[in-house]
């Protein structure tokens, strides 16, 4: 369902005064991913584990079609991610931790209804799907509360609800329980694994640096360090690798 072959990404930060004085517009390229090759089978939940700056978010954004790789190739649901396009974005949903991409002055329900239109839903469909998803992510009673007043956990749940508005077969989850208290994190992981992914026949790739999250969510773990894949293990082998 997901395939990456020798995937590379280099960023070219814009130059400062020093570079401009040297006649250069850009700084030296910064490698974010180098030769990343892996695959994820349909129905599988694979966690990509690595410290901050390892390249997890870059990898997930490339697979979501939001970033172009510098070299190599990646496919999701048989579609080339570099081509992007509506077909890819119908099949893939990116859910980002530390969510702040909703409008703070709108309620959770209003935010979902707006995104529902971007997923192609009619006003009535968006309303009923938003209500159903709010119910399922345990936010039904907070649907009329403004997003700015949501707790971190509620924001995460709303982001997951948005990821399910369409017909995505692949979920890309970037630190989905970041900043949640242990109990909320445990409940959210169980909900994600059992109801959102496994019961609906989806595939998921999860970026994380939390061993507890990886153990609770994943079927398999890939280890990414400074943009390079350093191996893989079963979830219960995470402590040995992470140490």
């Amino acid at each position, binding site marked *: 369902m997901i395939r990456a072959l020798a995937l590379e990404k280099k*960023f*070219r930060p814009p130059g400062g005064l020093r570079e401009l004085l040297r006649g250069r517009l850009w700084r030296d390229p910064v490698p974010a991913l180098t030769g990343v090759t892996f695959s994820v089978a349909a129905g599988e939940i694979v966690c990509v584990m690595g410290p901050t700056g390892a390249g997890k978010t*870059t990898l997930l*954004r490339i697979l*979501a*079609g*939001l*970033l*172009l790789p510098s070299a190599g190739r990646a496919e999701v649901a048989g579609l080339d991610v570099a081509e*992007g396009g*509506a077909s890819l*974005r*119908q099949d893939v*949903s*990116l859910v*980002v931790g530390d969510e*702040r*991409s*909703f*409008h703070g*002055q*709108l309620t959770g329900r*209003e935010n979902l*209804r*707006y*995104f*529902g*239109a*971007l*997923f*192609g*839903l*009619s*006003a009535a469909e*968006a309303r009923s*799907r938003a209500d*159903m*998803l709010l119910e*399922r992510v345990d936010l039904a009673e907070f649907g009329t509360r403004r997003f700015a007043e949501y707790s971190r956990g509620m924001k995460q749940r709303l982001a997951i609800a*948005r990821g*399910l*508005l*369409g*017909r*995505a*077969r692949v979920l890309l989850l970037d630190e989905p329980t970041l900043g949640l208290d242990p109990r909320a994190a445990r409940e959210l992981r169980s909900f994600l694994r059992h*109801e*959102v992914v496994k*019961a*609906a*026949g*989806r595939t998921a790739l999860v970026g994380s640096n939390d061993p507890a999250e990886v153990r609770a969510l994943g079927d398999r773990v890939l280890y990414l360090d400074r943009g390079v894949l350093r191996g893989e293990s079963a979830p219960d082998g995470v402590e040995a690798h992470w140490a």
Partner: protein
Amino acid sequence: MTEAFAPSSRPPGRLRWFGRVLMAFARRELTLFSRYRVGAVFRMLSFGFAVVSLYFFARFIGAAPNQHLDAYGGDYLAFGIVGLLAVELQQVGVSSLSYRIRMAQMLGSFEAELATPAPAWMVIGAAPVYEFGSAALRSAGYLVAGSWILGISFARAQPLSVALVVPVVLLAFISLGLLTAATTMLSRRSNPVAAVLGAASFFLSGVLYPVSVLPGWLQGVSRLLPLTHALEALRRALLTGASPAAMAPSLVALAAFAVVLTPVGLALFAHALRRARIDGSLVHH
């Protein structure tokens, strides 16, 4: 499979889909408008103050006949109000798209919106369509209010000419908007072109005085600005009842701006979007 979380059906055709996005965008903006009432009131007040000061200025100017106004019906107040409305329309055209992109980049919602199945043109296009729609309604409201409260006469307006001029003017302004939006994305800064264009247009295009009072060489420069032709066409259609044929030079100039600038703006915008996918600046502060 749990039904509630099963992937849902395919999206509709492009036009219907855009209609849904536009309606959702309008609903969102109106909801926000209702929650930021103070800002809206201040915006209307500032335009009201401009019109009131124009009213007294017009009384002062109107005390003596002015040959420069003869071509526009002779009423300075009507002349000035059409000027202010056209400036506002240009400002909407030039700024709305780039403002929307910049705000969405800063809020972090741009990437989330572009990650949905909706094509980029739908995500981005809803803002100018909505903004132009509301600006056109606002303008019509101002004209009606000006007619009732200040006694401005639009009795000579030629409906066919107005119906022809307005879309061409909007097209020309939208093409400018595409260019400024692309520069906003490429520069990752607030719109640097809009401020310069706004100031230059106000000074050179004849917003508060006819272009005919400018020195000859500056009149030549003013013809390079779409607002000059937009003002000429709008004033002649609204204030003198000029026929479409009589406004042909202005209409042709505006159409030329749209024909030349639209493909350039679209190409530059597509390049800016691709650039953002390369350097990761869909979200940037």
